[in-house]
């Protein structure tokens, strides 16, 4: 049964050092404020999962929160590389970063298996690529009917799943719409879940394309207006493309990054973005 919390309380309650944490969002509705709160609370040794780690994961990695990244595409969309991510895996700064690498189809199906209470998922994927050589969570399975060999990926069941949605009602039911990615699967696959929302409304009005998570499927809800910035929240605000550009400059340099970290996150009561 979801409970309404302040963001800092919810993160303190749900995210512990060493946890496997997934903050999902596919370009849209990225739970950035929750990520910043994790940095602010100085969590360490996290295994961070996400199909498309972008700027907020670069920030978490640069801040030394993560010892492992499980992902399928890591970049600054429309801009280029993630410099903190590259610095971590190429030069172990500020701490070494282990990786577990998949394709999008593989990661999506790992969440599906996790949400379905199954230990693995089957897909047509990875055949002939070098990924299975480096990733233990990719194996093969034979079809018991045709004998055909297919890819199998192990279920992904994070300790904590964190997403951002447009609305919750006062009971803690959640609705999101627009591009909703793997967010439902993330919440359902996770042992505990946190949904940050743009606003709390008296009643959720069903929307075209609306995905609803009932309160009993969510651990905690926190109202965080603007909690997806610099990504966008359909119906609320646009993507801040400049931020992604600026991040490229900040993140290229360790000192600039450290300064950003101190002023924008650690010394800030709450992140301005």
């Amino acid at each position, binding site marked *: 049964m979801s409970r309404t919390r302040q963001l800092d309380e919810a993160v303190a309650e749900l995210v512990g050092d060493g946890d496997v944490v997934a903050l999902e969002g*596919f370009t849209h509705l990225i739970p950035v404020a929750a990520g910043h709160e994790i940095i602010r609370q100085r969590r360490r040794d996290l295994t961070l999962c996400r199909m498309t780690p972008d700027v907020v994961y670069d920030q978490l990695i640069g801040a030394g929160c993560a010892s492992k990244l499980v992902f399928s595409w890591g970049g600054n969309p429309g801009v280029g590389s993630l410099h903190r991510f590259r610095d971590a895996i190429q030069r172990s700064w500020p701490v070494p970063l282990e990786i577990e690498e998949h394709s999008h189809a593989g990661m999506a199906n790992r969440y599906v298996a996790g949400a379905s209470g199954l230990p693995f998922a089957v897909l047509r994927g990875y055949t002939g690529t070098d*990924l299975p050589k480096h990733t233990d969570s990719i194996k093969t399975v034979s079809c018991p009917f045709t004998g055909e060999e297919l890819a199998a990926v192990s279920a992904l069941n994070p300790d904590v799943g964190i997403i951002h949605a447009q609305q919750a009602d006062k009971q803690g039911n959640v609705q999101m719409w*627009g591009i909703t990615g793997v967010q439902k699967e993330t919440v359902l696959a996770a042992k505990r879940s946190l949904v940050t929302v743009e606003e709390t409304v008296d009643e959720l009005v069903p929307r075209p394309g609306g995905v609803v998570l009932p309160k009993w499927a969510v651990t905690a809800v926190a109202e965080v207006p603007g909690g997806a910035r610099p990504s966008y929240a359909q119906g609320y605000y646009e993507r801040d493309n400049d931020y992604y550009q600026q991040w490229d400059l900040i993140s290229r340099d360790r000192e600039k990054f450290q300064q950003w970290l101190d002023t924008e996150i650690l010394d800030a009561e709450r992140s301005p973005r």
Partner: protein
Amino acid sequence: MTASVSAGTSTGDAEFTADEMMTVAAARSLGDGTACFVGIGLPSTAANLARRTHAPDLVLIYESGTLGAKPDQLPLSIGDGILADTADSVVSVPEIFNYWLQPGRVETGFLGGAQVDKYGNINTTVIGGGYEDPKVRLPGAGGAPEIAASCQQVLIVMRQNTRSFVETLDFVTSVGYGSGGDDRERLGLRGAGPVTVITDMGVLEPDPDTRELTLTRLGPGVDVEQARAATGWDLRVADELGSQHPPTETELSVLRELKATIENGEST
């Protein structure tokens, strides 16, 4: 190769860049009424150009879950709100891969990458130094391995030079024709693979038997030696080498209008 070339064409003395030629050539490859899985890079521009010129009924599918997106401006990311707003349907990411891509419903998949080899295999993962300790860490696979496997045909669009067109990939992220011949079929991959590679030098197509990528058409103002010099293997050239039709005035003007809808460079 970003210098513009001046080519005398039926449309007059239009000036255009090699990148514009690539985009136009990619757009032309997309049949009207077909579905196209739009990956990372230039593909989105090409697909939207096709939709505004010869293929108004082209179905644009983005891995973010948007089926039949009809953006009136170039999206800046594959998950832009404009894609959801204009789509016939927005589905979850698991559904886009499992129900739409995997069964081979999509005619054309668009791919690019940091490295391609002579059999159309692609690397978007690491360059140099090995996987554990790479010289350059790239973004990784994304949707590419399964687009390469499952689309009915794949179109590769990449700038051609000796760093990108290499004898041996540092990592196989997406499979084209594997080690050549019928290796792709032996692997059980069901789509036809990379039937066309469009570069800033021209067009490469797989040899029907060996599946080795072969230069079949030269871009405007490019000669064979330039193309061979830009290739990291001993590039085969087709007996009957054709040449690309330069962009028409319409293609160029629509492309430039499209590009003007974004300020921050290439859409991704």
